């Protein structure tokens, strides 16, 4: 069944390669920015608030931002996930946050919040890419 869509939600022609790169880079740097840039204001704001809140919750729950350790594949994958959220990650690193407290009851929850926020932002980046490609 066809549904009504607003002008901003209608599929558009594929963007130039430089614009695709810009959308993806911005979407990584600031969660939701890729959608905001393309006129999807509501979605962009939801992603911005929810993913930033999720990452901040992970830090508050004493989770750890994993380093890139080639010797431990799971830590390495966790490190990639942590970095998916962009600016909040960079701010946390600059503030020396995310050391993690292994003995805290909330430590594993904190890790899960941190990694999930990054992984969800990867999905948000892909969605922004699809919109820029005119697929959505």
């Amino acid at each position, binding site marked *: 069944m066809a549904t009504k869509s607003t002008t901003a939600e209608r599929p558009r022609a594929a963007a130039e390669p430089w614009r695709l790169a810009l959308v993806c880079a911005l979407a990584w740097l600031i969660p939701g920015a890729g959608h905001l840039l393309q006129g999807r204001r509501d979605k962009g704001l939801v992603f911005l608030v*929810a*993913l930033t809140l*999720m990452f901040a919750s992970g830090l*508050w*729950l004493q989770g750890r931002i994993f380093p890139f350790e080639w010797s431990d594949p799971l830590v390495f994958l966790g490190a990639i996930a942590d970095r998916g959220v962009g600016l909040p990650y960079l701010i946390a690193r600059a503030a020396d946050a995310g050391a993690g407290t292994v003995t805290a*009851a*909330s430590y594993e929850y904190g890790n899960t*919040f941190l990694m*999930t926020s990054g992984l969800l932002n990867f999905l*948000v980046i892909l969605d922004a890419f699809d919109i820029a490609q005119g697929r959505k």
Partner: protein
Amino acid sequence: MPPAVPASHFLFMVAYALLVSIVFATLLKDQRRDQVKTGVTMFGAFLVAAVVFGWLMYPFPL
């Protein structure tokens, strides 16, 4: 100074389920009504699954 971290595992799970449901519902649906419906369904499924799996694991000691 940030507020003290609560010790409720259930609360952590509810917060996690809520945030993930919001993001997925927003990502998957375009209409507000569909987003709310999907988000509420997903959030409920998270909670029910957590309680069910919690009881299933109950007989197994760590």
